[in-house]
């Protein structure tokens, strides 16, 4: 069997899994699953770009996803009335001051002669800058957060269509990636891993704490949709007629219609990203990336700018993660900073990339769809398994209750086992790199 046939077979099997889910558990479930699967596939392409093409070990995917989510809020929510005049400009001014402090410190580092004077000057700039920043920043934050804290209490967004937020989310993530890449790339691969792990936690901490920006743990809800609302569809006589004409109940029809509309949008993005990634992979640029990955010293000897190329691909991959994050927040219509968990948003994506086949974009897509399907399905399967195991036990026994209650925790175990097994027995993944 040729590679192409095998790949088609894999995707056909994936389609069977989704269709099977639709037939047994309803099309709503299947479409929800598929929507998230497509977003996961985009995430996996982003990580695959970094790991598969360039060998960069980024475990801060969660941070870039969350920044994308923030992008959705900043673009599409209506601005809070009076927030900008109350303290918004002050906050922006303070942020510019903060950035200026860091730039000044960097300039001092670069321009001054090495020695105690330089260290002291840099420290003085940073410390004075920090207190000035806080002095300007804090009153602004207080003023903004005082505006109707139960309903808004944040700056709000720009009231633009939410679709614009997708590229904007990518830009936000790219900006963060530039900062982190500038500092951590070029060091050992483990250090990049720790640095990205750290930046992800910090991004989440910022989202949780800076109420003026993202309402913190109060969450931003009701982010506008790019697709119609179910309730409007159900009141639209034309839609109800068509639904009944197809033999569907209008409520079910409307939910499926909305999910399907999302799916079309997501698939368009997936195809664009996939096409771009494929073009990149097969271009001279892609070959150079792989040459750098396989032997950095040799590539450097050939005159390739290893650090610059790494920074480039790191930013590109993170931007894709940011786009996927914005799409995810759009799908949920809300930003809940507490829901970002590293196991779910970083490490699961890594399982997708490794299982799918690192270095192969189609592998990443397959891995994204398949692992997401498993992630959702392991819970009911685990519960069924536990019920089977405990069937012989007397009702009300503590062990039985514990086992059944713990079935929900099966997910991590299964994902870890899958990752370990694939790494051991098929380290190149389902669709290996050519």
């Amino acid at each position: 069997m040729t590679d192409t046939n095998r790949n088609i077979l894999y995707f056909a099997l994936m389609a069977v899994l989704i269709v099977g889910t639709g037939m047994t558990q309803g099309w709503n479930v299947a479409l929800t699953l598929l929507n998230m699967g497509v977003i996961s596939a985009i995430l996996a392409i982003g990580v695959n770009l970094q790991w598969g093409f360039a060998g960069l070990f980024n475990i801060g995917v969660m941070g870039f996803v969350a920044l994308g989510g923030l992008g959705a809020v900043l673009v599409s929510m209506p601005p809070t009335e009076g927030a900008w005049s109350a303290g918004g400009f002050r906050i922006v001014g303070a942020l510019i001051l903060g950035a200026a402090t860091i730039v000044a410190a960097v300039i001092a580092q670069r321009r001054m002669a090495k020695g105690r004077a330089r260290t002291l000057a840099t420290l003085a700039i940073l410390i004075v800058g920090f207190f000035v920043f806080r002095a300007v920043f804090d009153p602004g934050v207080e003023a903004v957060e005082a505006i109707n804290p139960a309903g808004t209490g944040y700056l709000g967004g720009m009231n633009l269509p939410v679709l614009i937020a997708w590229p904007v989310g990518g830009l936000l993530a790219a900006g963060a990636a530039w900062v982190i890449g500038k500092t951590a790339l070029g060091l050992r691969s483990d250090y990049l891993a720790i640095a990205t792990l750290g930046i992800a936690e910090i991004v989440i901490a910022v989202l949780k704490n800076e109420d003026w920006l993202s309402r913190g743990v109060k969450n931003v809800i009701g982010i506008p949709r790019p697709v119609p609302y179910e309730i409007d569809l159900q009141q639209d006589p034309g839609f109800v007629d068509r639904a009944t004409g197809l033999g569907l109940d209008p409520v079910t029809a409307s939910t499926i219609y909305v999910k399907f509309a999302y799916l079309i949008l997501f698939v368009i993005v997936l195809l664009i990203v996939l096409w771009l990634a494929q073009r990149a992979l097969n271009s001279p640029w892609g070959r150079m990336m792989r040459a750098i990955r396989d032997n950095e010293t040799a590539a450097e000897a050939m005159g390739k700018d290893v650090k610059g190329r790494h920074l480039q691909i790191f930013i590109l991959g993170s931007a894709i993660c940011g786009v996927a994050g914005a799409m995810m927040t759009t799908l949920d219509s809300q930003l809940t900073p507490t829901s970002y968990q590293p196991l779910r948003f970083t490490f699961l994506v890594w399982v997708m990339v490794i299982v799918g086949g690192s270095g192969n974009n189609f592998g990443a897509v397959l891995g994204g769809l398949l692992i997401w399907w498993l992630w959702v399905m392991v819970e009911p399967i685990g519960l069924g398994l536990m019920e089977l195991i405990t069937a012989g036990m007397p009702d009300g026994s503590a062990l039985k209750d514990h086992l059944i209650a713990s079935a929900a925790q099966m997910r991590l175990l299964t994902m870890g086992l899958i990752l370990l097994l694939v790494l051991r027995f098929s380290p190149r993944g389902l669709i290996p790199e050519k």
Partner: protein
Amino acid sequence: MDILNALVAFLNFVFFPALAYGAQLSLGALGVTLIYGILRFSNFAHGDTMAFGTMATILVTWLFQAVGIGLGPLPTALLALPFGIAATALLLLFTDRAVYRFYRVQKAKPVILVIVSMGVMFVMNGVVRFIIGVNDINFSDGQRFIISARDFREMTGLDEGLAIRTTSLITLVTAAIAVALLFWFLNKTRTGKSMRAFSDNEDLALLSGINPERVVAVTWIIVAALATTAGVLYGLDKSFKAFTYFQLLLPIFAAAIVGGLGSPLGAIAGGFVIAFSEVTITYAWKKVLGYVLPEPLEPDGLVQLLSTDYKFAVSFAILIVVLLFRPTGLFRGQSV
């Protein structure tokens, strides 16, 4: 009097908590640094190893409590600790046999081992959640304070109380014993010396007849002891929650890298550097400054440099500074 009050407040809210936290981080960082030195990879499963060890200890503690065995004023968990260490050592040896050895024989790249450790992390995390659940568990028993804040106030007549918690003292004593044992082992015993030789130069160590599998096995057992102790001490001091232990990974790695990966002394220093910076930067200094500064200068706000949720940002910032200016860490570790 005010100066004394300020000092007591400082000791009570900054110094002692940071000291205990630093000791816990140091123990964790020692484990990471040992694995790095001997097995040459960054073990991302370390936080979950700590969680597993703590979980095993908690289960034995519950058993002891049910039977009625205790240590009086000391927490029962101390009695259960050796059992926790044994269980963790068995788990780690099994993991090594089932997972890591394959890649060691293959001489796989370190980054592959890091990814493998990610898989192990998933599995361990799943096992812990499966057995003990995801809730906060408080398993500290015995006497809570050696000196409570009120007793201290009555004894000294100061306005501020200095509460010395049993767990803080236990943390310091246990950590000191563990570190002393570790250094004695590494410097004085034959096995310890062969471990250091293996870490310094693998080929030379192999040539001189050191059995690598034995070195690796001993390393895992020591790591199990360190990780379990660190986890149990942290859990006694605060509480046990699987997810918190996973999050400890960042400060622990920061401590190990700041000290210099592969350097045990560096890991200890790094642990305290990270702990003290985290606590001083996220502590609200209003109280201390209120005593020290004259009336008109007294601060209105909390004088908190960063809110407590940014403690990760602190370890991270220190990490970045060290990486930029001294990538081998304070104590010249192995990494480039």
